[in-house]
């Protein structure tokens, strides 16, 4: 009877060890998979957030660059409505001043980089609106394999 007790003890201990490592392995695998999905979702949100920050900043950059261009050319902004030559000069200067990008190194520490390109700038003299079409590309630079890339365009408008 005492021998049977020791055998039970050993069997019980063995079963407990097997149970422990089995459950541990299953739970770890589940959590690892979930964590990967969670990381992917978080990265997607981060990319979207950066795109939105770029659009928000571009709005202000366009407003200030219009003011700065008019100031540099020493003109009344409304003069570009009637003078086509002046409008072309203004557009040229505005294109060189307008920079919708963020400070580049901001997101490098978070393994994300971006490019912002001004595709075109148009002046609507009838409605007194200056519009800029910008292309935003955000991508992750994590490791050598995970390169997620998101590209979008946005039209930023500013009344003058």
């Amino acid at each position, binding site marked *: *009877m005492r021998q*049977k*007790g020791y*055998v*039970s*003890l050993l*069997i*019980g*201990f063995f*079963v*407990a*060890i097997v*149970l*422990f490592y089995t*459950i*541990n392995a299953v*739970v*770890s695998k589940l*959590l690892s998979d*979930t*964590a990967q999905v*969670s*990381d992917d979702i*978080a*990265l997607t*949100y*981060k990319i979207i*957030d950066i795109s*939105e*920050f770029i659009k*928000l*900043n571009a709005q*202000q*950059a366009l*407003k*200030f*660059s219009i*003011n*700065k261009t008019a100031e540099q050319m020493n003109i009344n902004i409304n003069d570009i409505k009637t003078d086509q030559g002046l409008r072309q000069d203004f557009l040229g200067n505005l294109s060189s*001043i307008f*920079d919708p990008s*963020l*400070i580049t190194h*901001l*997101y490098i520490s*978070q393994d994300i980089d971006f490019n912002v390109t001004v595709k075109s700038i148009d002046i609507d003299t009838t409605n007194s609106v200056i519009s800029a079409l910008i292309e935003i590309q955000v991508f992750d630079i994590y490791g050598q394999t995970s390169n997620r890339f998101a590209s979008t365009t946005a039209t930023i408008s500013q009344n003058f």
Partner: protein
Amino acid sequence: MIHKGLIDTLFLMVLVTTTCFVILLVLPSILWIWTKFSQGPCKIDITRISSAFYACPQAPVTLETVIKPEYIPLTSDHTLFTLLAANDTNTGLQIQELLALAASQGSSTITINGSSYDVSQIVKIKLDYLASNSNYNFIFESTPPIQIGNNGISPQFFSTTSVTLPDMTKVRAMLILP
């Protein structure tokens, strides 16, 4: 008829299994969570105890895995975006524009059309509303810098962007949430 010795054996086996299972799996997890989040002065070094059982040095389910820290900067992203895009009813300008003007004028108090406005106060009111339990640290790296909130918060999780100034230079804005 089942032999009495067999019932004893089975009972003992279940008892030992349950006891070992609790010691190996549940106890280290409880101790780990307790020591990790214990605020009191008394702490037990779980690595020493668990090594005696040859168990995990940490709980199998770590809280860092369950509560993804990546989502904390996302929360601060949304808060920072909402702050910068928000309109101030008194001046009629966006907060990002007010910050740009403050940086441009070199002071937290700015003058628009002859009226003075305290940008720090405007931002503080907005953030007290936007950030839960009003615990945040907002930094705008202008000259001089504008800092609002609790500057003791660890900068482990933060959101950052840049704000364009009237002279087209860019200044970093950062929001840290605990």
